[in-house]
């Protein structure tokens, strides 16, 4: 069996992989949902937009569900503390997601225009709200979240929902929303033609610009935020106990990892290069390559937040020593090894059959296709 410390680090990487996987896969259909009311003018156009992701949104959503399940299994204390602490934010994500399955499946089953436009806005909410809130959540993680534990490791969250909506967090929310929407626009260009293609292209350029400016601004802001630094305890190889360390707050502390390992600047670099590259490729009408570029951009942007926080995953602002790290909020050695094995077996299979599903459904969705398949299409 791989040693405990290495497995803890592997799981930090794997949670990152799942988050990036979620952003690339579910992100593109959420981006499409966000764009739905703006790039499609009439009912047939809207159905074209919806049907570009129709066969795939459900499978993509599992990235989100599996991400939640993996955090539960690998970082149970993070799952417990974050989900209960961010109670109303989590419910907002959940309730926004409610609109997706029913929106996709029920919308076109009835021809009434009010019915259809209601579900269109539902799909917008389901696509727009979750990435926004995830960005806001990351913004709050970088500032620390007010929580602590009692002796029995019961988490107590002492902040309010409204305190989550602070300026820095909203900036992060904007970056998240814009990068996901740009990514969705690239996908939509790939699968559509004519007016929808042209409008998606415009949206891609605008959103990539917003994401780029926001990301750079957030970077400068982070440089001045107090970063959490472990001063004692938290032995990476020890049995996990989050109450067994001391933590100091250091201005600019979130840049320590970059200063110690300068090659890590490549991670935010990938984010910036991906956004610029995506925009240029969208401008040059190369949506396939733009999609790859925006996937890399999101890898870089999510990776930047992860590297800045490392080894923290959920720092505490009210009791820094309670902050959760990749070393002390984890499952047992055996469970981490088991779940790593399960991931190694199933992840390649998932990538294989997902690719096959996209290959089967490849090609542009056209207005004529929708008109010819009125009863079968979404």
């Amino acid at each position: 069996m791989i040693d405990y410390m290495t497995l803890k680090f592997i799981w930090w990487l794997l949670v990152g992989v799942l988050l990036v996987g979620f952003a690339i896969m579910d992100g593109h259909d959420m981006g499409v949902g966000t764009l739905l009311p703006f790039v499609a003018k009439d009912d047939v156009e809207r159905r074209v937009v919806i049907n570009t992701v129709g066969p795939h949104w459900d499978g993509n959503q599992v990235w989100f569900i599996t991400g939640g399940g993996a955090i539960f299994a690998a970082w149970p204390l993070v799952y417990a503390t974050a989900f209960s602490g961010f109670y109303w934010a989590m419910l907002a994500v959940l309730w926004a997601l409610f609109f997706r399955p029913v929106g996709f499946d029920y919308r076109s089953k009835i021809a009434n225009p009010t019915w259809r436009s209601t579900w269109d806005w539902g799909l917008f909410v389901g696509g727009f709200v979750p990435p926004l809130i995830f960005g806001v959540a990351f913004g709050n993680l970088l500032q620390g979240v007010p929580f602590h534990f009692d002796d029995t490791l019961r988490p107590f969250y002492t902040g309010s929902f409204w305190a989550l909506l602070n300026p820095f967090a909203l900036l992060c929310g904007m970056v998240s929303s814009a990068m996901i929407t740009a990514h969705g626009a690239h996908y939509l260009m790939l699968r559509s033609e004519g007016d929808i293609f042209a409008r998606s292209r415009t949206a891609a350029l605008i959103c990539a610009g917003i994401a780029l400016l926001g990301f750079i601004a957030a970077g400068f802001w982070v440089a001045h935020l107090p970063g959490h630094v472990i001063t004692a305890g938290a032995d990476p190889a020890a049995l996990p106990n989050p109450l067994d360390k001391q933590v100091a707050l250091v201005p600019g502390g979130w840049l320590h990892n970059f200063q110690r390992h300068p090659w890590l600047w490549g991670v935010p670099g990938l984010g910036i290069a991906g956004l610029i590259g995506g925009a240029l490729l969208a401008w040059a009408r190369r949506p396939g390559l733009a999609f790859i570029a925006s996937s890399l951009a999101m890898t870089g942007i999510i990776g930047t937040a992860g590297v800045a926080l490392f080894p923290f995953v959920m720092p505490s602002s009210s009791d820094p020593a309670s902050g959760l790290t990749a070393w002390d909020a984890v499952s047992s050695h055996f469970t981490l090894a088991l779940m790593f094995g399960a991931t190694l077996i199933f992840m390649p299979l998932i990538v294989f059959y997902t690719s096959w599903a996209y290959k089967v459904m490849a090609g542009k969705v056209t207005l004529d296709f929708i008109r010819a398949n009125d009863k079968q299409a979404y």
Partner: protein
Amino acid sequence: MLTDELVDLSRLQFAVTAMYHFLFVPLTLGLAFILVIMESCYVLTGRQIYKDMTQFWGKLFGINFALGVTTGITMEFQFGTNWAYYSHYVGDIFGAPLAIEGLMAFFLESTFIGLFFFGWERLSKQKHLLVTFLMALGSNLSALWILIANGWMQDPVGADFSYVTMRMELTDFWAVVFNPTAQAKFVHTVSAGYVTAALFVLGISSWYILKGRDLEFAKRSFRIAAAFGFASVCSVIVLGDESGYTVTKSQQTKLAAMEGMWETHPAPAPFTLFALPDDATRTNRYALEIPWVMGIIGTRSLDKEIPGIKAIEAENRQRIASGVQAVKALEILRDKHADPAAKAAAQAVFETHKADLGFGLLLKKYVRDMNQVTPELIARAAADTIPKVAPMFWAFRLMVGLGFAFFALFAFALYYSLKDNFSEKTWLLRWAVWFIPMPWIACELGWFVAEYGRQPWTIYGVLPTHLSVSSLTPESLYGSLAGFVGFYTLLLAVELYLMVKFARQGPASLGNGRYGDTRFAAQASIVSPGTPAQRHPSDF
């Protein structure tokens, strides 16, 4: 502070969202395999009608599936949002099957459902059938892992408590997977789903036959549902009995409560067919008993005793007293400032009483400080370990009664299908139509018996429910509960509206011109006189 109000609201929210989710799960589990059967007929015979059947029942499947997905995400969130301490305490074990469910099953189901609906033109017949099969396999594997997780809550095998990390940790994964409680539960639950779906198809097809509509379509659907349903209902009953057997080993309390067995009866115990259990006086009035039957079902023997409620409670009183020692020792072990000698002594005490730690934690509902525990409090905590008998007793009997009614219905349906004259048996067709909602009632009752009967524990014998909740305010719970009830009521109204609309439209909703009222006359003419097809649609 974990008030009773907070705990009750958290339980209510979980019960409402879980039981609501479970309105959609059984139909998905079963209808997926009915679609596989119908499409296999299409691939084997090449007849268009089987493809139409797959597509029409698939349409209803999709309407149901959408809400299954919607409400399933709630369940995934809710352990973290509302049961944070539970998630910490047992996440090391419980999280694993949930994550594996996502990786192995949910991805499979959700990826292939897209191809099921949209891949008809792009895949060969065989490949599309494979897609349908993988979708059905995924949904059933999903149920497997969820029930492995749930089975572990009932019967927590393969795990051990660590005082350093202050949680349960996994020691034997295969013991969790092959937990007999989980396995019996899985087969019983998916079979119940198959019965639900079979009755859904049987009932709606019967309605078409009674109306004289789309007869060829309806009769073929009826036959498939009758055969599939009969096999499934046999499995439900046999595996329900198997659940009864395993329950005697791991959860005698649940069995005693659902049987209203206050006293330990000399072996073999009788089965109480009818009684009015009275929780206040702890007796059954008007009991009608069948000798020996309970002993045989519960122990598969004539000489083993099944402990009654009073005996279980007396034993639990001792376990709670022992658990007090475990909790006290644990507090010393967790204390950073305790001296090493005291810790060493505490460790020895802890190892002796560790198995009863969960029982000691039951007292945390009443006192924080274990030095203030009195015999009265122990007696009170022991009384808490017995779930209310009357609801368990009746829910169980109603479920079993419905199960046997399904058995009778499917037995007749299959018999007349084989004789090929079921379309003349209007009593049978009407029975099937009126029985459409019944499997849902039986499924919800089964869920209730399993989960309500587990109280006062979230993890039986390990973690009491009142310690499992998140540290939220009751106001948050009122708010979220109102939100869930509002959303779910609205969604249910929309779902039922669409389901009824498309079920009434029938295969004509496929829009391929082969079905519906325009064909009514032509179809009616080929049916022999005297069949219900001749009746006016408004007769029913």
